[in-house]
């Protein structure tokens, strides 16, 4: 008898009567309207920021203004060049040199200020989203969902993406004496650029 069969047989024999425990359906819960204001509020609570666009400022200019000292600006979006295209990076070791990654997210979640990224947006180099020092995420207000329930009900990405990460602010830790530190091992800052 294989381990698989052994485990399944034990579970069959030992489990309480399954008929007593039906699967509940999940009713619509929580705040159901998505607003940019809510998203920004929660993004900031988790340490993220919004790149505030100045009059006539382009994304390129804004990045220069916010990250004046960073050298390797990597673009994963067609309309912006940066200093290197994500497709030119062939390994995580190369991705480690990136200072700022510019990428577009297909949707955000207002309840938590989260943005979604998958291999689609990251051009199959998923590690670049975590090896880069900073990340700038392009997001449209029309692509906001209200909360986690709506996200899981409506967004097909959760069913199709091989790798799908919800990033909520930059990486963080409070493992040393409870002091909250933004910028642990992944990105040190996470910024939203509204489009």
């Amino acid at each position, binding site marked *: 008898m294989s381990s698989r069969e*052994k485990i399944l047989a034990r579970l069959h024999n030992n489990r309480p*009567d399954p008929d007593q425990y039906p*699967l509940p359906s999940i009713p619509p819960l929580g705040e159901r309207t998505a607003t940019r204001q809510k998203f920004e509020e929660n993004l900031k609570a988790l340490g993220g920021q919004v790149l505030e666009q100045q009059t006539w400022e382009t994304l390129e200019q804004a990045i220069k203004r916010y990250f004046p000292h960073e050298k390797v600006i990597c673009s994963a979006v067609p309309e912006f060049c940066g200093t290197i295209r994500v497709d030119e990076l062939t390994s995580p070791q190369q991705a480690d040199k990136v200072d700022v990654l510019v990428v577009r997210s297909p949707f955000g979640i207002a*309840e938590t200020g989260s943005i979604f990224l998958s291999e689609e947006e990251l051009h199959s180099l998923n*590690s670049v989203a975590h090896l880069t020092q900073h990340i700038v995420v392009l997001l449209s207000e029309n692509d906001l969902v209200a909360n986690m*329930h709506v996200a899981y009900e409506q967004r097909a990405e959760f069913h199709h993406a*091989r790798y799908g990460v919800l990033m909520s602010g930059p990486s963080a830790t409070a493992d*040393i004496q409870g002091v909250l530190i933004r910028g642990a091992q992944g990105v040190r800052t996470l910024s939203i650029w509204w489009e």
Partner: protein
Amino acid sequence: MKVTPVNHAKAAEEFIKDTSHERFHDKRLWDLRQKRDEQMHALPEWQELRSLASQIKEHTLTHLPDYLEQFEANATKNGIHVHWAVDAAEHNRIVGEILKKHGVRSLIKSKSMVTEECEMAPYLAQHGVCVIETDLGERIQQLDKQMPSHIVVPAVHKLASDVAKLFAKHYNTDPDDDDPHSLAWAQRLAARPVILSADAGMTGVNFAVAETGSFVVCTNEGNADLSATVPKLHIATLGIERLVPRMADLGVFIRLLSRSALGSPITQYTTHFRAPQKGSEMHVVLVDNGRSHRLGMKDFWTSLKCIRCGACMNTCPVYRRSGGLSYGAVYSGPIGAIIDPTFNERKYSTLPFASTMNGSCTHVCPVKINIHEQLYQWRRVLAEHHELPFVKREMMRMAGKLLGQPKLYRAALRGAETALSVVPRVLLYNAMNPWGKNRELPPPVSQTFYAWYQENRIKKG
């Protein structure tokens, strides 16, 4: 082999002796509890979420064979290799074989309680694989050769000065610089090259979805995503109770998990793995290790609902003041005290007594495990199985006699009331009376309820 029960009380006593550590520990965890409360009050649907989470888990556990098969079928279809491990030894063997096949010498991993439970790292070390923890708290514990003391914040029992000393020894940092920012930075700098050169990565699993064959990992530091995406081999290991049936169920659990754990609305990273990255290999190990047996324990099977948030630890007055290491087990705190005896009844026979029975653990549990009732139930089971120490057994016997005879009880109580008001402090606060240690006894009441009732109700009535 003779098994000695963990001496929780003695270990706790050691922890309490160090006032600065004990005070910080207590304060830090209570702070997490209060942050959790703030999140709870911000969601009017909180109790509904808890009920749903509990029902979904109870349903899943009682239908676990079906959901495991469904998960396996879908994951396999997505290109994931699925393995089944009856126990810890088989888990370690499976992981060891995968690593051997790929010629892996260095493995980076994020937090996984199952690998702790299986004592995987020492096993792999014996087989020539260097295992590096990438989570900051876990890494601190690994460098200090200690078990995690908390399932969410593994080094919460340490002060920054302890970490500074430890890092100085291993990372050549300044032992006097105990600024948490510089220490965290030192970890980032030390970990990055290790991550970039590792042969394989390993993560735990918070939730596995049967419907899609995918699994979810919730972390804050970014280390799990680095461990899973940088090397070309990703092994994820999970207890078989991590399953949920549908993608939509995640909405309920993700909303509860980090709010209950750390008082934040969501972890910084909530990552969904459905298939290997292009050009990479992905393995999932489903671990039983006693869980199928626990499912058959009438009073204790619902402990399998646990989503490992640690809220019960943060709220527990005993845990907060005794430190996780005093439990001498991988799982500490209230949830540990009801899970651990299923692994080894004698070794962990003392843990269900590490509770004041205040029920706070049950009230904060996001999946509604009746933790304090199970603690009480374990005490019964252990008494029946003669796993009580002599003193406790004798005290119970005497208390049983006293409480069984109202007249004797009242006489004793009158004696105690008088005694409490007249005896000198030295008699109450000495080594023989554990209730007098580190706390003031309440002032004696002038009248017992029984005496008051006699006077005011029976006479007047």
